[in-house]
Each structure stands twice: as structure tokens, then as C-alpha cells.
């Protein structure tokens, strides 16, 4: 597969974040083209044709999402760039905003034109304060060049962009919680339906897309949807930024075409497993995706369909690679702690379930596990899955039960260790006596 650089094309240029470099490298040509030659509908059609799918997690067709915005609504419409990037392992939006902020801005403007929104927000992770400054600077540059503000390029179309920082909650990356937060409320996910495209920010039709999704739009408009689609697979168009972390020789953000082999990525692009170790497992889509075994990685390609077939997901495109020495129970414990910490607390199964799983895992890892614990943990995760208010709960469950299915031994060994120490020296093991009672 051909490795073109679409999103990362400017990453290596000096001062790539400035509007001069951006303009010199074809920047704002797509916006110029859309405003001069294309109707909003035509923009949406082009994006549909590109098979661009959301890079934020769910992988929904971007063109479809835009087309759901009612055209006859008398309410104002909004565009939001989701730059909350808080999924563990995910760090691609950061590079984009750092190296190529104008691509994000141009994408936002194209989306705004497509749905006829006149105000857009970038909701940015609070810790990215330095990027907030960079984006605001870029917006002012763009405004000075007539790309942002009233009557853009004399087209009659106006749009402004506001950057708003989050306050350190993962849940505020979930689109409706994000809108609550943007409205100044506590970031609880809303009940869906209605979906944001119809009832979003301040009750108005709203398009919300990931930063990377939006940054993919200018090249689509410039080179055509078909061109973009052909870079990837039929159903997952284009290229995508993969944030690879863990036990590879060269972790980092890589732009690769959709449909690229995961194995090849690990071995060629990332230089293989560190220290010549064997691969044990991969979590393919940020912490929220079910874990893959080394065998599954063999057949896996980097596109939505392939991962779906493996009952996992491509999610935010964060690939966490683990070598043979990794203790999956420890991994699961760490991720569970994350979800417990980040659960917004709205709904029962996620709020109580994540706490329960964390406590159980803690006890297990302390060596106080009991034979039924692994089954109980498995069942807790199953009971969370599919019953929660928002996908965070599902993600918390996905981090656990597939791991037990695939790496049960890693969990069982703690139970065995406890059982052994009980029979040997009951009084040495804290809590072991309880085992005798059971």
C-alpha cells in the first residue's frame, strides 16, 4: 500500500504552524474553491464520496452526519471541533494542532459552510493550554487574511471560531457532555435521541467532529472525494494518524492509509517490539477497544471493518502494543482505574461497576483473590456492557471482559498464588483467612 502523507504533509516543514507556510503549501485553496464554486450540498456530497469516517472514536460517516443537519431550521447552527483528546494512548490531535493548526481551521470553515453555521467552537483539552494559544493565534492570522469572520473572501459567508478549554474531564470528550460543558454546565452526557445534528449546542443543530476528521476535509475538497477514498478502503476512506505507544522500538504518531496491515506497522514502521521481545497483545483503539492477541494482530488491518470483524474497534486510532512480559491483569487494573476515575457518575452500572471492578482487581493483585473472583469480574463487566447511559461505561467493560476471555491465565495466577499461600502459611497473607471462611 502506498504511503502518502495527507495530514502530516507539513509536519516536518519549519514553522509549519504559520499561515505563510500553510498558504505556500496550498492552504485555504479548498475554502476558496468551496466558497467560489460549490454549493453547501456539493461540499457534503464530496465528503460523502470520500468515505471519510469520524476519527474521534465511533467512526461514523462524516458526510452523512453533516447531511442530518436540517436545512430549513430557523435556529442558528454550530460546528464544534472536538479537541478534548483524552483517550489513553491518543496524542494525534495534539500533533495536528501543533504542526498544522490552519488545516484544522480550514476544515472547520468548510464544515461550517456545508451546514451553514456562522459560529464554530474548538473545545480543547485543558492541558493543551499552549495549543489553545497556538490556535487562537492561527485564527487571528486567518482573520487578518479574510478567512475567518464576516463575509469570508467576499463570498457573503461569515463564520467565527472560538477556542474553549476543557477542565480535565475525559467524559467531556463525549459529544453531548462536551456541549453541556460548553454551555457552562456540568459535563454529563445527554439522552440520545435527539442527536446533536438536530438538537445540539444550546438546543440548536450542531455538527461535532474530531479535529483530525475536520483536518481531512480540505484535501478532500481540493483533490476530490474519490481520490481520498482510494487512499484507503472502500468503506474507510483516506489515511489516518495512528498514535502508537507501548513496547515498540519507535513509538510515535504515524500517518498510514486505512487498510494497512497492523503487523507491518508494528514491525516496519515502528521498528518492531522493543528489545527483540515477542508481541503479546495490542489494544487497537485507545483504551476503549477490546484487546487483541498476537494471533489476531496477524490478520488485522487498520480499518474499521477489519477491527469490527475481530469484535474490537479502531476507535481513536491509538495503538497500544504490549510485549510478552506484560501482565494483562495489571494492564486491566490500570485501565479500570482510569475509567473509575473518569466515570462521570451519572448512571449506576458505570459509576458503581467501575468502582467495584477496581476494588476487586486491587484485592486480586494484592494476592487476596478467591477462585470465584475472575468469574465475578467477568460478570461485572458483562453487566456493565450494554446497560450504561453513554459509551464510557461500555468502554470500561470492554477493557475487562475480552481481556479475561483472551488472557485468563494472567488473572487466575493471582488466585492460585493466594490459594497456595493460604494452605502454606495462612496467617501471613492479609485477608487470607476470609478465604477459609468462604
Amino acid at each position: 500500500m502506498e504511503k502518502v502523507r495527507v495530514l502530516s504533509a507539513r509536519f516536518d516543514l519549519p514553522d509549519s504552524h504559520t499561515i505563510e507556510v500553510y498558504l505556500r503549501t496550498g492552504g485555504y485553496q479548498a475554502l476558496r474553491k468551496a466558497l467560489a464554486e460549490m454549493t453547501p450540498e456539493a461540499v457534503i456530497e464530496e465528503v460523502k464520496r470520500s468515505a471519510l469516517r469520524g476519527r474521534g472514536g465511533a467512526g461514523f460517516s462524516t458526510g452523512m452526519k453533516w447531511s442530518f443537519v436540517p436545512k430549513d431550521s430557523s435556529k442558528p447552527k454550530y460546528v464544534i471541533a472536538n479537541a478534548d483528546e483524552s483517550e489513553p494512548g491518543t496524542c494525534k490531535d495534539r500533533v495536528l494542532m501543533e504542526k498544522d493548526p490552519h488545516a484544522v481551521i480550514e476544515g472547520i470553515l468548510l464544515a461550517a459552510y456545508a451546514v451553514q453555521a456562522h459560529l464554530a467552537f474548538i473545545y480543547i483539552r485543558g492541558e493543551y493550554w499552549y495549543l489553545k494559544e497556538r490556535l487562537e493565534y492561527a485564527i487571528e492570522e486567518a482573520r487578518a487574511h479574510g478567512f475567518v469572520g464576516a463575509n469570508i473572501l467576499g463570498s457573503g459567508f461569515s463564520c467565527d471560531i472560538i477556542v474553549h478549554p476543557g477542565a480535565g474531564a475525559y467524559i467531556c470528550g463525549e459529544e453531548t457532555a462536551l456541549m453541556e460543558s460548553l454551555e457552562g454546565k456540568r459535563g454529563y452526557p445527554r439522552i440520545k435521541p435527539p442527536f446533536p445534528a438536530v438538537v445540539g449546542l444550546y438546543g440548536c443543530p450542531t455538527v461535532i467532529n474530531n479535529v483530525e476528521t475536520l483536518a481531512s476535509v480540505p484535501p478532500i475538497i481540493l483533490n476530490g472525494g474519490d481520490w481520498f477514498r482510494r487512499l484507503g478502503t472502500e468503506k474507510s476512506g483516506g489515511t489516518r494518524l495512528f498514535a502508537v505507544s507501548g513496547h515498540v522500538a519507535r513509538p510515535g504518531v504515524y500517518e498510514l492509509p486505512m487498510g494497512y496491515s497492523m503487523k507491518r506497522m508494528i514491525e516496519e514502521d515502528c521498528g518492531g517490539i522493543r528489545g527483540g521481545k515477542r508481541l503479546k497483545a495490542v489494544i487497537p483503539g485507545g483504551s476503549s477497544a477490546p484487546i487483541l492477541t498476537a494471533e489476531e494482530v496477524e490478520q488485522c488491518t487498520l480499518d474499521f471493518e477489519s477491527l469490527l470483524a475481530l469484535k474490537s474497534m479502531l476507535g481513536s486510532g491509538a495503538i497500544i502494543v504490549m510485549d510478552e512480559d506484560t501482565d494483562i491483569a495489571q494492564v486491566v487494573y490500570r485501565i479500570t482505574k482510569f475509567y473509575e476515575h473518569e466515570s462521570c457518575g451519572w448512571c449506576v452500572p458505570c459509576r458503581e461497576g467501575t468502582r467495584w471492578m477496581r476494588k476487586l482487581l486491587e484485592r486480586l493483585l494484592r494476592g487476596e483473590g478467591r477462585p470465584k473472583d475472575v468469574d465475578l469480574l467477568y460478570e461485572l463487566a458483562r453487566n456493565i456492557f450494554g446497560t450504561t447511559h453513554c459509551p464510557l461505561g461500555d468502554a470500561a467493560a470492554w477493557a475487562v471482559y475480552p481481556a479475561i476471555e483472551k488472557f485468563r491465565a494472567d488473572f487466575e495466577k493471582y488466585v492460585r498464588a493466594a490459594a497456595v499461600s493460604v494452605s502454606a502459611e495462612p496467617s501471613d497473607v492479609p485477608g487470607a483467612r476470609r478465604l477459609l471462611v468462604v
Partner: protein
Amino acid sequence: METVKVIINGKEVEAPKGKLLLEVCFDAGFPIPNFCYYKDLPPQAACRMCLVRIEKMGRLQTACTMRVSEGMVVTTESEEIRRARMAMVDFILANHPLDCPVCDKGGECELQWMAMNYGDLLARFDEQKDATGEYPLSPFIWLDPQRCILCYRCIRVCDEWVENHALGVRGRGAHSVIVGNRPDGTLACEHCGNCVEVCPVGALTSTNFRFRARPWDIRDTVTTCTYCSDGCQLRLSVRDGRVVRAWAKDLTKMDAEFANKVLFSFRTAPETRHNWINEEFLCLKGRYGNEFVNSPDRLRVPLLRRNGRLEPATWEEALKYVAQRILEIKRTYGPESIACIGSPRLTNEDLYVLAKFGRQVLETPHVTHAMDVDWRPFFKRLTVPLLTQPELREQMPTILLIGGNPPEYNPLTAYSLRAAVHRHGARLYIVSARPIGRLQVATRFFHIRPGSEPAVWLALLDEGEVERAAEATLLTREELYELRRFVWEADRLALLVGREVTGPALEAAAVLGGMLQAKGERIVRVLPLLRFNNSLGALDMGLVAEMLVPEQVGPQIKALYLMGCDLVRFYGDAWRQALARAELVVAHELFLTRTAELAHVVLPAMSFAELDGTFTNNAGQVQRIRRALGVAGDWRPDWMIIDQIAAKMGADLGCRHSAANIFREIAETIPGYQGITYARLNEEGAIQTERPLMPLEVIDRARLLERLRAQVEAIDHTAERLQEPAPLGIGLFEPGTLTEHVPLLRQAFGWDVRESVEVSR
């Protein structure tokens, strides 16, 4: 209404399109367990107890948020759903303290009920629980966060029912805790306790009820609140002869079986039915203001003034003394020298007997009651029926409130106004001289000059007067035209009249409805915001003579027969001297009030909790009060005291020893009360009296306009609008004769209550 067909567990059901699936299932006989669902409150999807399977949908769905649509196929009972429910109970109980044996909610707890019905036999949680202590959020309310299941009912009730927005959540995930609106997490609010009531578990509890009784120790009696004229129904819980709480939760709404289990102690048919005019709402006074009946300060025996001091006496002595003195005075000075003044807090039965006593036995014209505002002109000219609370909530798309401060003085009306807006988007226009803090749901607010309410009525009655009204009210002409359109173009209009509306304006308020209805097919109802629980009953029972001025006592009036009315407190200190000038002052009282202190005879009466009787609320609805307490003092009903005095004077008032008999006579003689009986009241709850309406033709409207114009001319045209809303609690937190004997209120508000005068025993 468009209906759709849905299939629930194989049964075809027709339902209004867009209705919540949970409600449709409930109606179809398939109750779905729930915690965070609450009727008429915004859906939450938080507890996940209500998960059901809907065909063609990937995952289980929450029935409390799903709206029914044509062809929906739903399963509410299956292995999968059973397991999901069990899992939710498991999760909720995981960190729950499970201290049911010492929890106030034990026995009427929704979580216990759900756990018994839908939970697993064994809890599987075997980790350390995160324990939290309990602590007060306010002088009235305690929170035990560990028992809280985060159903957010309390928050929503505070937002929607009472608009205090005083509750929220602090912390995230499993550390989420309900908090109050002060920086330290405590509450600055109106202390209505509705949040406590809707709490499904023992997380929120009331200070007065904590650790005082278990549900099975309690006997509940449904009765009517003794404070404002809205007339809420409530259950008084009594344990060992003491009132321990008042509550209004509709348990049948959740599950009939649950309701029966909890209410087993009083499973008499009419009282378990919950078709109350207040639904489940109560205010601070209705909920926390009842324990004056337990007060040690209650008068327990008759007191007779001997050698200048009030001393205990027997009933026989006291009654004989009163009868004798009255006869002497009547003989010496004539019947017109005696005045009977009742209280608008007493029952219709008491007031009726007092009026009859005054007219037939004493033969005096001075039979009246303590009124704060003179509503007589209004009821005399009433042209349309009065508006009930359920009508206000459900049937009135256009509502105009002029004057008044319902959140403080008529809290149920405020609740109903909010409900009308939330439930069916009623348009609410408010005309007031002060912003009303807790009615922000209003569509429009018209801010007028203080005292200029009459000008608004003038403009509403007569388009030609808009100019004059604009000058008086400080509203623009456009605003007044908008108000006129609002009123004259409405199909169904509710007019709410506050107590700032007086004199000719009050007559205008009574007449406008008739004028509107004469103009075309439409429905107009009017609600006068009277003050006391039986203000209207007192008028109906005929205590309508002009109120005395203190100067009349002495030269003209020699004897005062006072029933439950503290003239000194109500009308001011001028009455102290007046009482001293009287030759005889008889006072029926619960407490030794400022007035009773100066009486010659004080007769200990029964409180509303010890009596049978009726009140008539501001919508003209008659409702029962029921005896909830046994006898703890040597006290008697007011009517009985009078009946016995009359007997000693050789007259028979025909009470025939029971309130029911008196009410039978009321129904026969008082216009509008025909056909109402205790039996019907038990059955139906509230029955609206059919008030005689005045035909429009009889009213001299030209003359009325003239008088109204004069009233408008007299408005102080220099007064400025009041920018600040009335302070929170201006009405609710004010000490009154009854509330100041409620220990909880006294402590909470730091009332410096007058020490009661020493009485020798």
C-alpha cells in the same frame, strides 16, 4: 390526540403517540421497576432499572426515556431483562450501607422494595465499602450520601416544583455527592422538604422525623393543611399520641402493591386514593409546621380571671360564668353590645356555629372574622367560577397573575403555575410591582409601579383607559395592549388575583371574567389568592360584618366573643387598651396569646389535628380535616364549647354532638354547599362549591369604571418600581401564632419567641 399501536409482551396496546414507554407499560399492567423516573419530571436515564428490549434495537433501552411509536414491539419480562435488573440492584447495593435497621426509610424504602422484588438472593460485593457519615444540609434536612442512589429526583424537584435550584452534585463518578447551594454545601432555600419526600431511599431525611418512628409504629390520617388558602392535603403521621411528620407522597404512582404495603396502617378506601389537589407537593409550613399540636404550651384547662389573675377552672365553672355574663350584658346594654369575631383558621363547622350563636342567640349584627384583605366585594360580584389547582395545572394555556407573591404566600399555586408551564407550555404573564424570585418560568413579566394594580385592571376592562393606565403603571402602551390581547384573545384563561388588588379593582377582577365570556365562546376561571386556610369558609359561613375598630370597644361594644383570633397580634397594640375597656372578653384558644392573656375567660380549644371538620379553600373547594390525635388535654371543639354555652343560656344550636351533623345543616343552608356530605368528601376528596354568580346585566359597569378611575387617580404617581424581589422567606419564615410553637421552626429561624405568661395552676 394521535395514538399508536405497540405490542408489549405480546399484548397489543393503544397509546398516545410520544408517551413514555414506561408509562404506557404501567398503564397496560406491566409495571417496570425504576428509580430515577418520576412522573412529570425530566427523564434522566440514570438508574438503568427500567431497561427493556425493543425489537430492532441493538441494546436494551431505558423505558423511562423511550417514547412510543407505531409498531414498537417491546419485551419487559425475559431472562435477559431479569438479569439486567438484578445487576442494577447489585450495583446499587454494592457500596450501600445497608443499615436498614436504623434507617428512617426502612419499611417504606423503594430500594428495599426493588431489592426484594428484583435483586439477587445474595449480595456479591465483598470489598471494603467507602463509608461516609451523615450530616445536616440545613436545619431541616440531613443527608447520608452513602445511602444516596443518585436518582437526581431531589435536584429536579427543587428545580421544577419550587424553583429554588438549591441542589446539585459535587464530585465525579463514585465520589458524586448531592450538595446544597452554599459554598460549604449546605442549603439556602425555602426548606419545603419536597426533596426529602421524593427521595426513594433514606439519603435525605427530615430533622423532625429522624429516629422518631418506623412506618409500622405510625398511624396516618389524611387531612387538610391548616396554613394557606390553597388547601393542600397531607397525611399526618402520629406515634404515641404525637404528630411526628406530615407527608404527601403518592405511593400508588409507583406500584399499587408497594403502596398497600407501606400504607397498611390506614388502608381505608377513600384515604389511600391520592387524587389530591396538591398532588405530592407541600410547603415548609404544611410539612414542618404541624408540631405545635404537640407543644407543652398548649392550654389544657379553662382559665378564669379571678382577682385579676387567670386561674384554672373547671369547664362547668367557666361555661356557667360565660353564659351568665353574656346574659347580663345583653340585658344591660342590648344585643348590639356583643361582638363575635372568629378566625379564618377554624373549621366551617366551628364558624357556622359561631355565626348562628351570634345571630340567633345573641342577636347581634357584629359577627365577623379577622381579615387581612377585604375580599367581600370580590365574592359578591363573582361572574365566573373559581379556578382549582388541577385546572390551573392541566387546562389553562393562558394564565395572568396580577399582584401577589405565590411562592411565599400561596406555595401550591406557585407549584401549579410552574407545572402548567413545564407540562404543557402554558403562557404565564405576571404583573407585579416586585420581581418574583421563584417564578422565573413566566413567559412575560410586567414590572409596574407599586400600588398601581388597579390601573392594570382598568386598562383590561376598558381599552380607552390604556393611556391613563400607562401613566400610572409605568408600563408602555404597547405592553398594556399586549396584556389586553393576551386576555381578550385567550380561549381558556386563568386570572389570578393577588392581595394588592383591592376595592374597585377587586370588583373589576370579579367582573372581567364575565365580560370576557360574554364576548365569545371561551372559558375564564379566577383564583383569588386569599391568605388563610379557611378565609373563604369564614365568608361563606356568614362572618361578614364590618370588622370593629378598637375605639368601638368600651363606648359601644361591651363584650367580645373571640374564637381563635389574636386581635392584638393581628391588628396591633391598640387592641390591648380596647380589650381592657371591655366588660367581658371570652377567648377560645390553643395558646395563651397576647389577646387571651387579657381575656376574662380562656377556653382551651382543639387543634385541627384533633378535630373533624371541613375547610373551604380559595377555589371554593370543601375538604375534610380529620381527627388524627387522641385527647391529651381537657379541650373541646370550638363548636361544642359554644353549643354548651348556648345550652346554658337556654338555647339549642342544633349541633347534635357532631361536626357531621353541623355540616349537614351547612349543606342545607349555605348557598353552594348543597349536596356535599362527609361521605362524599371521603370518597371524592375535594368538592367545589357552586358559587352563585352574578349576571353581568345586574352590574353597573359604568359606575364601576368610574370608581376604578378614581382609584387609579389616587395612586401615588411618584413611587418607583421595586427592583429587588421580596426576600426569601418573607411569608414562609414569618412567625405566626401556630408556627412559633413548632420547635423546629423556632430553632431554624432563631425566632425570639415571647415567653408565655406564667399561669397559676
